């Protein structure tokens, strides 16, 4: 038998045929209903003003919806783990970019208000070259 097969889960008789799990159609519709419900939830949640929590809840619900689409519509749940690792790595690096950038932007002027502040504390004069409406 030719030493051809190097795809994992390759059984001899179907000669490397393509096999991907296909869920019943009703399952996809159920996933869609879940997504629609979550959309309604997130719109509802935005009407209450929970301060900082608002953003976290918004991102949380959006992540739940994204996981539904990724897991079932994009077959990640029934597929080789490697594809999931790719997505996780990509999101991890967006996280790295966001955390280190905000580590700078949020802490400017914390040690000494004269450092990278937009207003000079002593005189209150806005920095030249800046935004003037």
């Amino acid at each position, binding site marked *: 038998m030719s030493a051809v097969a190097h795809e994992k889960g390759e059984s001899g008789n179907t000669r490397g045929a393509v096999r991907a799990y296909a869920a019943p159609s009703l399952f996809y519709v159920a996933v869609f209903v879940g997504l629609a419900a979550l959309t309604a939830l997130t719109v509802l949640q935005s009407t209450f003003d929970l301060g900082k929590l608002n953003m976290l809840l918004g991102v949380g619900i959006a992540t739940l919806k994204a996981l539904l689409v990724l897991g079932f519509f994009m077959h990640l749940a029934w597929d080789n783990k490697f594809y999931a690792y790719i997505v996780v790595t990509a999101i991890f690096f967006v996280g790295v970019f966001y955390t280190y950038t905000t580590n*700078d932007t949020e802490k400017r002027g914390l040690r000494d208000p004269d450092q990278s502040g937009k207003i000079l504390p002593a005189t209150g004069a806005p920095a030249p070259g800046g935004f003037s409406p």
Partner: protein
Amino acid sequence: MAAITTAPGYHEEVDPNASYLENKKGLLSWLFTLDHKRIGVMYLLSVIIAFTLGGLFALLMRAELLTRGRTLMDADTYNKMFSLHGVIMVFLFLIPAIPASLGNILLPIQLGAKDVAFPRLNLLSYYIYVFGACFGIYSMIHGGVDTGWTFYTPYSTSDPAHGGVGSSSAVIPMTLAVLVLGFSSVLTGVNFIATIHKMRAPGLSWRRLSLFAWSLYATAIIQILATPVLAITFLLLTLERFLGIGIFDPRLGGDPVLYQHFFWFYSHPAVYIMIVPGMGIVSDLIATFSRREPFGYMAIAMSSIALALLGFLVWGHHLFVAGMSEYATMVFSALTFLVAIPSGVKVFNWIATLYKGSISLQSPMLWALSFIFLFTIGGLTGLFLGMLAVDVHLHDTYFVVAHFHYVMVGGTVMGFFGGLHYWWPKFTGRLYDEKWAVAGWFFVFVGFNVTFLVQFLLGSRGMPRRYYDYLPQYESLHQISTVGSWILGLGFLILAAMFVRSLFSGKPAPRNPWGSAAYEWLTPSPPPTFNFAKDPVFERGPYDYQVATDEELYDGFDDPLFPEKGVAEGEARA
């Protein structure tokens, strides 16, 4: 062209034994080729043209700095010279050079595959590269850019035509050029990861992957994860200059330091896109020319991956004095030091490979050894710049210019030319003249060191970079550096003449001129269109010199270093 509907990527009739250069003739067979080797050769040609153009700008710049005040050109032209030198060298030469040219030619052969995973995507990425280069040429025709290759805002985005304070040069075509070039790099990355994962021949486990392939894998990871942020940054830059959306321009409520975060989040991993393939080539060269399995194979492979991942955490060391908060400078300085560890591990392992090897100082090996020496100096001076107190003094001075030239020219260019010498017989089927090669290497090595060693001194004495004119105390060092650049230019001229001469009158190359056990030397040179006459199955690793048979390693060719006898019949034997 392939049949449209039913069979994607179906190749026309091809004689499996004819070499990929002979099996189809004519310009069209090159312009619409799907063969990774031909695409690699086209990339190689374009990349060398870009290198020549960039080198020309460098020589003009150094000539201008020969004396104080105006020597050749006025301030504006000089500013455009260093900006175009930067943009061409970084985006048109260093980033595509090794992965897209040598990587495209060699990777499928080293994996025992017929072609890369997506041949049409490969051709598309070449044409996107050419399309991007056209934008660059358009900008050069219209006066080029004078913002430096970093395009810092608000100088680059505040267009005087809209009442701004910035540069009035042709910035938008150049930023579009870089935006488009980024996609070519991303598509190459996608292609290489899919190829390395799915196209390996039977018997080629991950532990039998060549170290060059490992480095291309690490580079592809960076290309995929970093280049999109470059695309977004330059899209925002172009729109801000063109339409005035206020993201980076402080006049419109934006923040220029945020631009530096966006730019360097791509550009620091980009310097690892440039250096890691060079390291991969050096690992292969050291293994071949000391005829020994590389010491710590897994350590070298994993440090490529470590470099790729750590490369994403250190971009802040470009912003130490840019107005970043001290909390961020502290974190970035610590992480910058961390990134020196994998490079150190690689250098130690290369040196350990030389121990008890059978070292032959043929021309490719000379390039690999100079990579070790110069990259060590380049890496260590990087530590200077990672150290906070020292970076405050050295930032944006000639010390930084010397550092990145030691890493880029001393590293990537040495690796690129080492790889070019090493695989030249394989993909052109011609041997080059060893004496000319050693002469070329000598002039390049000496010229480079004379040019850039003094620049460390210039920098530590406080000479800022990108200066058209300078104070009297820096004049003598600038003159030494300019003379050095002439020697460097001469060296590259010698190499160019040698390679052109070898194309026309070089001796036909045997299958394995260097006696290497790597897979690419099992197939004749130049290789057939599908790389191997019959689908290969590998029983040994690429560096198993103990297992490799003598017949595989040595086929009676005339050893360029000791040419006592005439040439043995050099025609290829499968």
